[in-house]
């Protein structure tokens, strides 16, 4: 136990109740995903096509982004290009300043998080209000999201109840989820109406039409953009897709993979500014074009930010989003962090049992586990190989080189399957802390072979 991840995971596990709830709840989301994906017989074909569209789009970015720009301009939008986070923040600020905006309402955007937009604007005196309920809760708590789709998954309703008493004047002690959600609805209504500008990210930007597509369940992106007439939409350039036929593929996969819904409640298509309003679109690079040259990791650009790889990850479920040092946790975050700054974020590379579950659920076929494995091979070159992981493989070698002991271990392994979870994941079991214990086969291959079951 030596990396920053495993230390933080240890802390998360101290609150046993919350940790168990977190694990079980995310597993339930994963199970919902399994159920709805099985209702679609062509599921694997969909994933193949999603991946193929992304491979095409991300290898034709110049052409598609220029086509998008041309169409967006023809639709009456303003288009900006931002090389990095600073430029993106400045562009947003200048638009707001030019319109004397004091109140700014945002819907959820991982890009804004990546670029530190809120802090930047607040330092300049602009009130930024997050409108996604989970994001708003965290904003008021001065905390960061711990999951990209379920940002407040680590927060208990009692904490939210107390927060709302202070912030929204709710009844003390009433922690009912419906009551609290509707209190926030009322409170944020005012914020939507008084805002002078609204911002959204984009799940997809369509080259052939110049429109941006935003998917939400709450309807907050639409509440925002239908009140003030000034709209800003920003996206990382890998969000580009060639045409609406591509949307047919992605909208079938996104919510099914992320939350187990057949589609998000709202799938909004913003093509033109509102009458008498303005639409400003910012295309952001911030390191993405550099990833194009990295054949080993280029597929990270396929990512739809659905969150499925987090929900399924045995390490993420048991360690929580805050145990990762990069702002995006889980399998995709491990890889994106390494691409951003390997010496800064290498701790996360250990937060993986190489069970490959993430890679199997990813709707856009990002080869997440292959990439993590690849990073691990490079840790030596970076000079940061973890001593505990070296010990682990040392332990495996010890067993492998002593066949009798190995056979004994394997024979007794099925017992683990029937043990209560508390015994498998007890405090003494450091391995279980970091990894999902694999289901051991009831009979080992050796035994079956001896009994002539294997031909």
């Amino acid at each position, binding site marked *: 136990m030596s990396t920053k991840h495993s230390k933080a995971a240890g802390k998360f596990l101290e609150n046993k109740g919350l940790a168990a709830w977190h694990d079980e709840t995310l597993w*339930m*989301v994963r199970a919902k995903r399994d159920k709805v994906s099985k209702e*679609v*017989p*062509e599921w694997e*074909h*969909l994933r193949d*096509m999603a991946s*193929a569209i992304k491979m*095409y789009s991300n*290898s*034709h970015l*110049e052409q598609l*982004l220029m086509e998008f720009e041309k169409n967006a301009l023809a639709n009456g939008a303003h288009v900006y*290009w931002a*090389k990095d986070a600073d*430029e993106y923040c400045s562009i947003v600020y200048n638009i707001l300043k030019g319109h004397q905006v004091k109140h700014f309402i945002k819907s959820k955007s991982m890009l804004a998080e990546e670029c530190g937009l809120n802090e930047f604007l607040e330092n300049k005196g602009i009130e930024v209000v997050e409108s*996604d*309920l989970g994001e708003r*809760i965290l904003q008021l708590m001065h905390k960061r999201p711990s999951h990209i789709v*379920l940002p407040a998954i680590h927060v208990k*309703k009692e904490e*939210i109840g107390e927060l709302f008493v202070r912030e929204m004047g709710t009844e003390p002690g009433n922690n009912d*989820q*419906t009551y*609290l*959600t*509707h209190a926030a*609805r009322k409170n944020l209504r005012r914020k*939507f109406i008084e805002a002078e500008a609204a911002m959204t990210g984009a799940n997809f930007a369509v080259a052939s*039409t110049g429109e941006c597509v935003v998917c939400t*369940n709450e*309807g*907050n992106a639409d*509440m925002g953009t*239908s*009140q003030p007439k000034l709209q800003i939409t920003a996206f990382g*350039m890998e969000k580009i897709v*060639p045409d609406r*036929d591509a*949307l*047919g*593929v992605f909208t*079938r996969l996104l919510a099914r993979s992320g939350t187990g*819904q*057949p*589609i998000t*409640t*709202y*799938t*909004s*298509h913003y*093509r033109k500014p*509102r*009458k008498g309003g303005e639409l400003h679109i910012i*295309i952001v690079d911030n390191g993405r074009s*550099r*990833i194009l*040259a990295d*054949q080993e990791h280029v597929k990270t650009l396929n990512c739809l930010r659905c969150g499925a790889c987090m929900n399924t990850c045995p390490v993420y479920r048991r360690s929580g989003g805050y145990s990762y040092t990069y702002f995006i946790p889980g399998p995709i975050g491990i890889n994106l962090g390494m691409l951003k700054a390997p010496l800064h974020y290498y701790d996360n590379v250990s937060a993986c049992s190489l069970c490959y579950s993430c890679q199997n659920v990813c709707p856009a076929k990002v080869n997440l586990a292959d990439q993590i494995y690849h990073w691990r091979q490079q840790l030596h070159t970076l000079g940061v190989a973890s001593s505990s992981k070296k010990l682990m493989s040392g332990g495996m070698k010890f067993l492998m080189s002593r066949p009798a002991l190995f056979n004994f271990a394997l024979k007794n392994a099925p017992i683990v399957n029937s043990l209560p979870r508390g015994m498998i994941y007890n405090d003494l079991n450091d391995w279980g802390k970091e990894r999902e214990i694999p289901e051991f086969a009831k009979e080992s291959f050796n035994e079956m072979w001896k009994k002539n079951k294997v031909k």
Partner: protein
Amino acid sequence: MSSREDILQSIRRNTRVRYEKPDLSGLEHEALTYEDKLSKFCEILKQVGGQAVILKDKENVNDMIKAAYPEAKRIASTIKEIKTGNTIQPITCSTFHPDDVENSGDLDGTDVAIVDGRIGVCENGAVWLTQDVEQRAVYFISEALVIILDRNNLVNNMHEAYKQIDTGEYGYGVFISGPSKTADIEQALVMGAHGARSVTVILI
């Protein structure tokens, strides 16, 4: 050099293998279809928290809306009338047109909005709306949403839907699948996060 040029140059310099654009026709052919689209649509809409009702012969749409939302006082409608077969039914239960208000914020407090659905998607209960009034807020701000949809305009899946949609003169359109929802507090599902708390699709 401008950032635009810098970025495009960086893309050119770093792009390696160029992949072909995939042919989606195989997938689109293979995609889910339903024998009874109408009942599938109703079933899925219910699953996502909405309700579908089928307008029967001689039944009046205004009565239906009033029965579904008896308490409603402020009722906005973007449509004047509906056509069923050879009869025309005027919408009489509405109290105002959304573009009558001065500011979009004035629509706050609308109890029901009656709007026109263009296409219904059976696999997910979503209905495509093309913005057809200036106050786009009406689709989101009202407490309940009533969507009028021609039952002949149901498609099986999103592939089919995307071949038909249009964002119209206003340059905006949205698929809405049931009421606004959130599970951000301990994963408990709550309807009515920011948009409509209740969605009824009336199939005519």
